[in-house]
């Protein structure tokens, strides 16, 4: 589903290279996890895939179902089925959560040549998904993420994902800042969406999340590259030995 080949990315301002030849393939129906030290480029990868400005791709490619997503506008990528749950969700005063979600859903539908959702169906859909994530209706009436706690913001990201039903979901540290119960709700939300036509790329620092969202493949990223890949056990190894141990072993191998 997602195929990244030899991706090189540098900052537009200053030209500092961040991604240095990254290769990654995520198949439909699978969950891949990425772990890696702070500053290794995990968020940069997610932003570049989602289409944020400020980065320059100097080499390589990223394809979603064979289509070059790097050439698309961010909204086109979303309509094509890509979704990024932000590490730091943005607060937007003055724009209501519901207005935003409905505008987004209808824009995606329109881009795919589908009909707009009726307000009744939309309300029902959001209420149902919000209930599952334990998000109360009052929160939805507020402006996007304004006054939300850290954990509420993360749950709101997953609510958006549940409503928009993207096919390629990237979660950037959605677990950080969540209490144990919220983590389980988020994991349940993700697991409920797991199916043969959908794939996940889960960026995390903690094995704990991967107990709930069991990945098919775990990658270790360091200095802008995937340096090791393996099964769920690799996450346990990180937990026990730290990156120093793993990267040392990887370098030695």
């Amino acid at each position, binding site marked *: 589903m997602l195929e990244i080949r030899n991706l090189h990315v540098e900052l537009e301002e200053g030209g500092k290279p961040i991604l240095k030849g990254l290769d990654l393939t995520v198949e439909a129906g699978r969950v891949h996890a990425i772990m890696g030290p702070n500053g290794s480029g995990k968020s940069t990868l997610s932003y570049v895939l989602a289409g944020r400005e400020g980065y320059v791709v100097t080499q390589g490619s990223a394809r979603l179902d064979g289509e070059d997503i790097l050439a698309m506008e961010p909204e086109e990528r979303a309509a094509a089925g890509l979704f*990024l749950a932000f590490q730091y969700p943005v607060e*937007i005063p*003055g*724009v209501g959560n519901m207005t935003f979600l409905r505008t987004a859903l209808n824009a995606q539908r329109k881009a795919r040549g589908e009909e707009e959702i009726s307000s009744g169906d939309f309300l029902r859909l959001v209420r149902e998904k919000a209930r599952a994530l334990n998000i109360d209706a009052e929160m939805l009436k507020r402006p996007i993420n304004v006054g939300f706690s850290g954990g509420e913001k993360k749950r709101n990201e997953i609510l958006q994902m549940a409503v928009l039903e993207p096919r390629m979901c990237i979660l950037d540290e959605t677990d950080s800042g969540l209490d144990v119960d919220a983590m389980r709700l988020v994991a349940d939300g993700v697991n409920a969406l797991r199916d043969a036509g959908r794939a996940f790329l889960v960026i995390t620092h903690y094995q704990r999340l991967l107990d709930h969202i069991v990945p098919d493949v775990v990658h270790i990223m360091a200095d802008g590259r995937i340096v090791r890949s393996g099964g769920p056990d690799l996450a346990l190894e990180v937990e026990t030995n730290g990156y120093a141990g793993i990267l040392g072993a990887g370098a030695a191998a």
Partner: protein
Amino acid sequence: MTMQSTLRQETTEALIAALPRPGGAAWLGAARDAALERLRRMGLPQRRDEYWRFTDPGRLVSPAVPAVPLREDDEKPAFAAVEPLRIVFVDGRFDAAASDPLAPEGVEIGHLGRLEPAEGHWAASLFGVLEAEGQKPVPRPFAALNTAFAAEGALIRVRGEASRPIHLVYRRTGDGAEVLLHHVVRVEGGASVTLLESGVGAARLNTVLEVDVAEGSRFHHVRLQGRDPARIAVTHLFARVAGQGEFRSFTLGFNGALSRNEAFVTLTGDEAVAHVAGAAVGDGDFHHDDTVFVTHRGRGCESRQVFKKVLRHGAVGVFQGKILVERTAQKTDGYQISQGLLLDERSQFLAKPELEIYADDVKCSHGSTAGAIDETALFYLRSRGVPAEEARDLLTLAFLHEALDEIPDERLAGELSEKLEGWLRRHR
């Protein structure tokens, strides 16, 4: 006499000579004579005057009014949802046939142009009086000009809770005219009314609205300032708010080559409230100036000034706002915010926020910003599939929201919000 003051005098006399002097009741004549004298004493503003340093008064002082081609009005009539009583002015003349016949219960409506020559009209104690009080500390010559020369305007006295809003509708049938309208409103103790204004009215429109808000009464004002791109306007709002009175005014400005909207509000009694707010959107040849002066005299009063402007393609927004807290005005709560959203680098927002405080126990804050759309927020919306232009509109409306929130009536707020949405869509 210096060269500048000679020039000022010449400019003033030239405009005076170009305007017809209206007739009417003796008390009116006296008020107009006094206003003319005030005008001559201060003279019309000039480019270098401090109060006009962001706005060139040239197009307002010239005796000749540049023509503004009439265009088909494809706008829905404003404010229909609140079923207001309409008072229609066509080319500056009250048009009884086009207006609604009966005043709402609790309201008495007269017309400046149709007064009996008899003495003792209630408006005599306000007409030109609030304007004259508003000439200190800063002169407002166009308001004096208006008092001296306006032949028409509504005189509205509210004695109870007005059953319907009153809507002053300005229409025009010609390209070039200058129109002066002078309205006086008195809201008696405990009474309340909503006053609406809409329409372009003239190529050059000069309005004065004097409002006396008596104890415990309420005056709400919502104004939609017309959208003919070449129109110019200078307006003044003078309000005196007695104890526990409430004054709220909101103006939405569209397009317009030049608008100078001044508000001079004095909170004379204790625990009175005054909110003056506005939203303006301009594209290209657009210069929009809000100049506000709020004086706190009573104890424990609250005032808010909230102004937001969206500017693109070289449009210019101006805000000059002052909160003056007199020695008597302890426990004042004053707030002022003015913000410009610049949609490109050619547009400008110029602000001069001022606080002048003589009481020691007050809470006053002010802020002013000018900036572009928040790119982080824009990306967030787009990453969820909202197309860039729609996302920009959402953020622009969000920016305007704090000002629109100042409109007390939700139906009116909703209507203006829709108008803004439409404008943004048309100006993508």
